[in-house]
């Protein structure tokens, strides 16, 4: 991968597909939020940056570039893409004949199982354990095909996870806020644990303080703090959704009867 075209083409396809759906959006629907468009375009650019030659070339032998590529593809690009609400956009713009089967797929049992936060976290964060703690990692360094598959998995699993936790797109039968917050904490905790485990491994196996060992500990620290940033953004997206939806039940009922101080605080249902 020494040319720019795969990176540029991926970004271009993502951006033009979205903008095309935006142009096809019927006039009677609510105007599309500019912030959603910006989020998607940022996500599309981040995918391109992650696949661009400066990162992709070095990712095969430089641990730092490898980690940057993984953080971008698996965490930051999915945040942008998912907050762009592509499913909502497509469902609004697609003709009825195409929208109905799409909704049927979204409501199908396999999609329910796959888009459950726990499944999504297992695929996304759990996938990293499989990558770094098994011979799979060595395989990605020798085989271009395996390497490409792993990158595709990172991006897709990252999008699935972000959608399950904080996606504005419809997700039928998505569990409530508590399950999603708990999943976020456990998955982010597992991510931080894996980062420190890799750090500890690098320290143990390169106790002589070689350059190689230092590069690995740097990459593990990048994984730890880069993961923090993504967790923070994901938590903000999740709680912003919760706040817009109305917050706590007690808060909703208090706001429903704001002028009558003697009104009973019975939740309105």
């Amino acid at each position, binding site marked *: 991968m020494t040319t720019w075209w795969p990176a540029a083409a991926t970004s271009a396809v993502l951006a033009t597909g979205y903008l095309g759906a935006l142009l096809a959006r019927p006039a009677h629907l609510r105007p599309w939020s500019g912030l959603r468009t910006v989020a998607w375009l940022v996500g599309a650019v981040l995918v391109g940056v992650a696949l661009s030659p400066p990162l992709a070339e070095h990712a095969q032998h430089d641990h730092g570039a490898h980690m940057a590529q993984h953080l971008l593809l698996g965490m930051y690009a999915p945040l942008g893409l998912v907050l762009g609400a592509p499913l909502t956009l497509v469902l609004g713009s697609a003709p009825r004949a195409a929208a109905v089967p799409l909704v049927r797929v979204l409501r199908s049992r396999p999609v329910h199982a796959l888009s459950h936060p726990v499944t999504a976290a297992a695929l996304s964060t759990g996938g990293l354990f499989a990558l770094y703690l098994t011979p799979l990692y060595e395989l990605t360094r020798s085989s271009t095909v395996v390497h490409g598959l792993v990158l595709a998995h990172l991006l897709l699993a990252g999008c699935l996870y972000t959608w399950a936790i904080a996606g504005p797109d419809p997700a039928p039968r998505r569990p409530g806020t508590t399950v999603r917050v708990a999943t976020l904490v456990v998955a982010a*905790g*597992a991510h*931080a644990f894996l980062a420190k485990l890799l750090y500890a491994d690098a320290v143990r196996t390169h106790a002589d303080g070689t350059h190689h060992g230092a590069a690995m500990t740097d990459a593990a620290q990048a994984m730890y703090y880069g993961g923090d940033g993504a967790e923070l953004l994901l938590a903000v997206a999740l709680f912003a959704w919760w706040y817009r939806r109305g917050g706590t039940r007690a808060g909703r009922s208090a706001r429903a009867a704001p002028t009558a101080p003697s009104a009973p605080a019975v939740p309105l249902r």
Partner: protein
Amino acid sequence: MTATVPDHRRSVGTGVLLGVAVMAAVDEIVFHQLLGWHHFYDRATPDVALLSDGLLHAAELVMLVAGVFLVADLSRSGRLARASASGGALLGAGGFQLFDGLVDHKLLQLHQVRYGVDLLPYDLAWNAAGLVLLAAGAVVTRRAGRALRGRATG
């Protein structure tokens, strides 16, 4: 109990959440990043302790975000009791400081306050600071609760 009166209990709870999270962030930024006293990993930590450290760290970040949005939610419905929330924040900050000093540093041995020095004065200062914050939080919280109850009955 009326719908739009400041809610002491929820305000304290939200304050505790924010206090813990802010103290954890201060610990991370000041002692790990700026002073470099603590270590990211100090070669002696067992893997189980690393796992609990990771989970706590992730929970703290989520608590920070949750706390901010819970305060906003209390505030928009007129239920935020500022003094109660401040008391709660002091309780949370002191509680975290003590927890970090006793459980993380001593029990789990995740890392020490500082390396290459006599630890005793550092440990004493660390935990005494936690106790002082905790005591201040208890006083502020009790006073805020009493003032609110006085307003409700009088």
